[in-house]
C-alpha cells in the first residue's frame, strides 16, 4: 500500500529535519504519558486534599500578604500578615483549588485529549473518506449534493456547531475500566477512565467534511488514471476499484490531513472543556477554566501548566504533520481543520 519510494522519502526527510525529530520526541512522549498514566502520575488526580490546596510548583514558593479583618471589641480591625506558601515536593507542579495534584491531573489529561483527538479523527475519516471517494468517483447529483452540503456544513463555525450540538444532546460519557488498575498493576489510581463520548461524536461530525473533500478531490483525479480504466475494462466491480485501487493511492493526502485534524481536534476539545461542555472533568481545558478564577489572586500555575501541555502535544503533532507533508508530497493542500 505504501510504496518503497515513499518510505525512502520519509526516512530522508526525517534524517534531514531536526524539527521532525523533535516532533517525534514530543509526540511519542505524550503518547507514553497518556498510555501509562497510572504509573507516571504520583497521585490520584481526583483526590482532593483541601489542606494542600493551591500549592505552587517546586521552586515557586512565595510569601504573600494576607489581609485579615476581625471584630475586636466591636470594631473591625484589619491585620496584614505575611503568609509563606511553601511548595511541597510531593506535588512538584503544585495543586489546584481543591488540592488535587497538578502533575497527576496533567498526566491524566493527556489521556482525554489524545483519546478524543484520535478517536474523533478516526470517526471523521471513517465517515468522510468513503463518502468523498464515492462522490468523486461517481460524480453527478450525489457529488453536487455533497459539495453543496459541504458548503453549508462549513458555513457553521465548527466550535459553535459543536457547542450547539453538545448543548442539545448533552454530555454523555462512556466509563471505561482502566486496564492497568484492573490488572492490579498499580494501586491508588482511579479504576475507571471517562471518555466523553458525545464530544467524540460531535467532533467527528463537525470535521468529516474535510476528509470528504480531500477524498473526493483524489477520486476525481484518480478516476481518469489508466489503471483505473484498465481495472474497469477487466470487469472489476466498483467497490473493488474504490477499495483496492483508489483508496491506497489517495491515502497520502488523507494521512497528512489526519495529522492536522488530530491537532485541531485536541484544540477543539480543550476549548469545549474550557467552556464546560465536555463529559469529563479530567481534562486540560477544564483545568484552564478552573485556573482562570485564580489568576487575579496569584495562583498562576493552575491555568498555565495544562496550557503548556496542550502546546507540547499540538506542536509535536504539527511537526510530524509537516514532516509527512514534506516527505510525501509537497503539493498537498495543507491546512484543513477546525
Amino acid at each position, binding site marked *: 500500500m505504501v510504496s518503497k519510494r515513499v518510505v525512502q522519502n520519509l526516512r530522508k526527510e526525517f534524517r534531514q529535519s531536526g524539527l521532525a525529530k523533535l516532533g517525534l520526541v514530543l509526540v511519542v512522549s505524550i503518547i507514553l504519558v497518556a498510555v501509562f498514566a497510572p504509573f507516571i502520575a504520583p497521585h490520584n488526580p481526583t483526590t482532593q486534599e483541601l489542606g494542600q490546596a493551591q500549592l505552587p510548583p517546586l521552586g515557586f514558593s512565595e510569601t504573600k500578604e494576607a489581609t485579615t479583618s476581625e471584630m475586636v471589641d466591636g470594631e473591625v480591625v484589619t491585620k496584614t500578615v505575611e503568609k509563606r506558601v511553601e511548595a511541597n515536593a510531593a506535588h512538584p507542579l503544585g495543586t489546584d483549588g481543591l488540592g488535587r495534584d497538578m502533575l497527576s491531573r496533567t498526566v491524566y489529561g493527556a489521556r482525554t485529549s489524545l483519546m478524543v483527538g484520535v478517536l474523533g479523527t478516526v470517526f471523521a475519516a471513517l465517515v468522510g473518506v468513503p463518502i468523498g471517494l464515492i462522490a468523486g468517483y461517481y460524480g453527478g447529483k450525489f457529488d453536487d449534493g455533497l459539495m*453543496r*452540503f459541504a*458548503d*453549508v456544513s*462549513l*458555513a*457553521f*463555525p*465548527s*466550535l*459553535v456547531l459543536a*457547542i*450547539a450540538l*453538545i*448543548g*442539545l*444532546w*448533552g454530555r454523555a460519557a462512556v466509563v471505561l475500566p482502566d486496564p492497568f488498575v484492573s490488572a492490579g498493576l498499580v494501586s491508588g489510581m482511579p479504576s475507571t477512565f471517562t471518555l466523553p463520548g458525545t464530544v467524540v461524536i460531535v467532533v467527528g461530525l463537525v470535521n468529516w467534511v474535510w476528509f470528504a473533500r480531500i477524498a473526493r478531490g483524489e477520486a476525481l483525479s484518480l478516476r481518469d488514471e489508466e489503471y483505473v480504466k484498465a481495472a474497469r475494462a477487466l470487469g472489476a466491480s466498483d467497490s473493488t476499484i474504490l477499495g483496492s485501487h483508489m483508496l491506497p493511492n489517495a491515502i497520502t493526502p488523507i494521512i497528512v490531513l489526519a495529522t492536522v485534524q488530530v*491537532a485541531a481536534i485536541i*484544540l477543539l476539545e*480543550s*476549548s469545549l472543556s*474550557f*467552556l*464546560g*461542555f465536555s463529559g469529563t472533568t479530567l481534562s486540560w*481545558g477544564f483545568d*484552564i477554566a478552573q*485556573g*482562570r478564577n485564580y*489568576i*487575579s489572586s496569584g495562583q*498562576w500555575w493552575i*491555568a*498555565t501548566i*495544562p*496550557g503548556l501541555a*496542550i*502546546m507540547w502535544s*499540538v*506542536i509535536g503533532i*504539527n*511537526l510530524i504533520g509537516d514532516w509527512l507533508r514534506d516527505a510525501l508530497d509537497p503539493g498537498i493542500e*495543507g*491546512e*484543513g*481543520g*477546525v
Partner: protein
Amino acid sequence: MALGRFAIKRTLQGIGVVWGVITVVFALRFVTPGSAINAVAPLDADQETRQAIAAELGLDQPLYLQYGQYLFDLIQGDLGFSYIRGQAVTPLVLSKIPATVELALAATFVAIVLSIPLGVLSATRRNQPVDYGATLFSLVGISTPNFWLGIMMILVLAVEFGIFNTSGRGVNAGDVLLSIVGPERFLDTLIGWLTYITLPAIALGTYFTALITRLTRSGMLEELGKPYIRATRAKGLPETLVQYKHALRNTLTPVITVLGLQLGTLIGGAVITEAVFTWPGLGTLIIRSINLRDWPLLQGSLIVIGISFVLVNILVDMIYAYLDPRVVYD
C-alpha cells in the same frame, strides 16, 4: 461586466447556502431528545406554557406547514421569542453583533498586517534569522489554544503589569470615532479603547497571524520558483516589483481561499475569546443560551452567524476574483 455577473452568481449561491443553514437549524428542533417542544421551551416550563408553545409553533400541524411558518417568520426578521428572557430574539441578537464584529475585525486586521509582510520577508530571506523567527512563531502560534493565550496575557499584562483591562468592553470603536471631534478627548478615548480591545484582538488573532504567515511563506516560495518569475526578472523589473506585484499577488489567492475556509474558526475563536475576556458579544450570548437552555435564542444566533458567514464569504470571493481574474471566466 464579468465581475458583476460573478458577484450576482455568488450572491445567488450564497442565498442557497443561507437557505441550507436555515433548514438545518429548523431540523435541529427535531433532533433534540424528547419532542420538538424541548427545543423551544425552557426546562422548567409548566404544562400550560408547553401547550401554548406547542400551539404557537404549530407542532400539531403537518411538517411542511411548520416549515412554511418558520420561513415566513424568518423573512420578516422574526427569529422567535426567548421564553427564558422574555424578549424577542431578533433585537437581542442584533444588539450583540457590533461587539463581535469589532473584535473579529480587530483580530483580522492585526493578523493581516503582521503576517503578510512577515511571510514575504520569511520567503525572500530564506534561512536567515527572520525566516527562523517567523517559522518558529508560526509553529507556536497555530499550536497555542487561544483561550489559554488570552488568560496568559491577562495574567501578565493585565494583572501583573496593569497595562490593560482584564475584561469587558468599556470603550468601543464607535466611541473612538465619535470622539474625533475633540483632539484631547480623542486621545483619551483611543487609549481607553485600546486597553480593552488589544488583548482580546491579539488572543483571537494569533492563530491567524501564524497561519497566514505560514501560508504566505510557503506560497511565496512556491511562486518564486515558477518560470514566469524568471522571465519577469529577465525584463529587468526591479526585484521588489517581482516579489510583490507578481509573486505575492498570486500567492494571496490560495491564502484567501484558506482564510475563507477558516472564517468559521475565527467565529468559533471569537466565541471563546469573548468567554475569556467577558466581551459582550454574540459568543457570550450563545454560551449563556446553551447554559440556560434557551433554545430559541441559540437557534436565532446560529442563523445570524450562518448568514453573516455567507456574506463574508461572498466578500472574500470578490477579493479573490479581483486578484485572479481567471476565476471569473469559469
